[in-house]
């Protein structure tokens, strides 16, 4: 069975009811389990790559790094950081687990911090609530996140968790805001042919700024942009 398909059927126990089988077998007898699903990201891309780059990316996609338990934990964390219940979707709609998996494989320096961070989180969950992070209740998960979501917390015991959560927050936000959902959420207007003609007037007023006449004389008259440039001998543009 394709590993990715398996993951889609992995179950989360909402209560502290033991560690879920790493095979992801969906035959749990508990009726208190929920599946975690996310949008799958493509594994082939075409955006102006050299042969060497194509090979590198193929190798990255073929590489298996995370165990299923780890990937589910990543999914749960990403979902907490940027929930799906929003008009512009959230981390799972944006395929964050796949993105995080790719970036961690792409950047060697992320591998140990993410693996170790998940293990730290599980250890802490077991200590406090008797089960791995994904197998404790949602309220318990949030209470643990509350302890590690703020870098100003001084408790030395929590520092590894704080570092890990900060990294996961960075990856989640960057992964979401670089998708179509994220650009929509942000309201980004660019990456398209247009004619820049300065800051909109209403914005200038709001910021108490204005273009000076002398400066504007140096600027392009966009109605003349397609007229071929000509100059006089004194370097003055005449067209």
């Amino acid at each position, binding site marked *: 069975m394709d590993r990715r398909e398996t993951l889609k059927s992995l179950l989360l126990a909402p209560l502290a009811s033991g560690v879920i089988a790493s095979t992801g077998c969906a035959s749990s007898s508990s009726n208190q389990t929920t599946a975690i699903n996310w949008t799958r990201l493509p594994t082939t891309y075409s955006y102006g790559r050299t042969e060497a*780059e194509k090979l590198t990316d193929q190798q990255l996609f073929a590489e298996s790094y995370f165990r299923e338990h780890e990937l589910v934990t990543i999914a749960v964390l990403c979902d907490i950081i940027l929930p799906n219940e929003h008009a512009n979707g959230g981390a799972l709609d944006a395929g964050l687990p796949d993105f995080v998996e790719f970036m961690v494989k792409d950047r060697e320096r992320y591998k140990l911090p993410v693996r170790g961070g998940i293990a730290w989180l599980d250890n802490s969950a077991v200590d406090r609530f008797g089960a791995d992070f994904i197998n404790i209740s949602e309220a318990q998960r949030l209470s643990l996140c509350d302890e590690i*979501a703020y870098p100003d917390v001084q408790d030395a015991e929590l520092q590894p968790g704080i570092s890990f959560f900060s990294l996961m927050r960075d990856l989640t936000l960057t992964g979401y805001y670089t998708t179509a959902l994220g650009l929509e959420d942000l309201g980004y207007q*660019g990456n398209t042919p247009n004619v*820049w003609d300065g800051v909109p007037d209403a*914005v200038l007023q709001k910021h108490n*700024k204005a273009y000076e006449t002398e400066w504007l004389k140096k*600027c392009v008259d966009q109605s003349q942009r397609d007229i071929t440039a000509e100059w006089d001998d004194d370097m003055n*543009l005449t067209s």
Partner: protein
Amino acid sequence: MAEQQFDVIIVGSGAGGGMATNRLANAGLKVALIEAGDFYDPAADEQRTQLRYPWESPRRGASTRLRPFGDFNSCIGGWELDGEPYTQKGDTEFMWWRGRMLGGRTNHWGRISLRFGPLDFKRRDIDGLGDNWPIGYEDIKPYYDKLDKLVGVFGSNEGLYNDPDGFFLPAPKPRLHELYYIEGARKSNVPVIPARKSILTKRINDQRGVCYYCGQCSRACDIHADFSSGTVLVYPTLNGGQVDLFTNSMVREVTTDNEGRATGVSYVNKQDGQEYQMRGRTVVLAASACSSARILLNSKSPQHENGLGNNSDHVGRYLHDSTGASRAAFIPDLMERDIYNEDGVSGMHVYTPWWLENSNLDFPRGYHLEIGGGMGMPSYGFGFAVNQYNQFLGERVGGYGNQLRDDIRRFYGSRLSIACRGESVPQYSNRCELDPTVVDEWGIPVLRFDYQWTQYEIDQARHMQDAMEELLEASGGILLGSKPGAERDYGLTQPGEIIHEVGTTRMGDNPLTSVTNQYGQLHDADNVFVADAGTFVSQADKNPTWTIMALSWRTSDYIIEQMKQRSL
């Protein structure tokens, strides 16, 4: 391949090589253009990175070893190339970027196009350091003038003596954060003027399009509205029968005859791994300052035992790069912005030229300021430390959940940054030379770098840091990060890092202290020329590309004239 005799063999297709190719082919000469990388067409979909959304890359534009400036950047090459190492002497940490593609590094530069001024050619007269150029501004001005019209550059005539006027296209209007900077700079009595960049804000001919403001020159332009050597200078020569382009070809050496004159080059075809000879009446090296020096040093013969052009032992010496330092600030007045498309042209619309000439400073040579900020397209790294500015607002940093969306929008476009680019003082002891033991994958000896900044550059960086702090605060900014002090050389970039390396084959009238004459012609072999930044005696605080092209054009005119007179 049947051996063919070319009028000119040009090594390298970047700014210098592209210009020489364009001018010499235009004059009717038969040209071979040799490029170590592949052909490149930014409009071809299989090579295009422009106008792609971040999700079209699995890493959303993050940098890779193969594309250190991000994986949508168009420059194929980088700090490290497989099979082509370079080494360091002692504790040198020189960074060497090599482009491997048609157009070379003109595919990724910022398009900042600054003429050197009259003072920049005569720095020794002013501060007693280094050497004067054998030419002055009046010698190069006609070429800058022609270059402005042929290639196109926007800017403004300001009447500044050492930042000369030009035949400029009109400038784009400043963005909002740039208006904040303008106001701040004026409070500090620091000048700020429109940027000068080779991007077509207005039509200059029927072959190239007019900028459509995607802000992505670094991804190369499908309508050739930005300057890159490939699209603007080389393409127009490829269909006239005057130019034979050899890609994926790595030049090993310039071959010479019994008189010590060049007969052509030998090169490795990277696809079949075989070595080939090419014959030419003249050879123009434009492989980049360090690569051209390497070729010369590797061109050993009984007539040139120390390498071609190296009787003076000056090839590789006086290597110098621009200095650099940077700082950023959070502008609270730019929180909660109305969102509109302000991609604009690539990078800054305004800049500050060096403003303290003739001031009593404790370091020589100047620098200029490049301004950054705005509501750019998100790519990898966007959203990192999402609400770190909360620390300045008395609010808590961190957290999770949908309020992070509010933080993202609240702080989007509220950052203002400054990058300084300054002039270093060339040193005889700063050099690249052949490593005695290391070769590349084709068995060609590689370069070893030996380079240390002096106190001049460190003192300049200290001044940069003070100036940036003052300007960012005057612009309404709260400074980010900590100010680097003496223990970090005031944030001075590593040598080579700014990718403005010049000086390795410097020009001069005295063959004992220079490698070429004022036309880039080797003192030791009259049919070999250098048309890249190797000939620079000093690099000014100006980005070198515009001067590389002006000098290459001047060299090309000289070659044409000498051939007419049958001196070549």
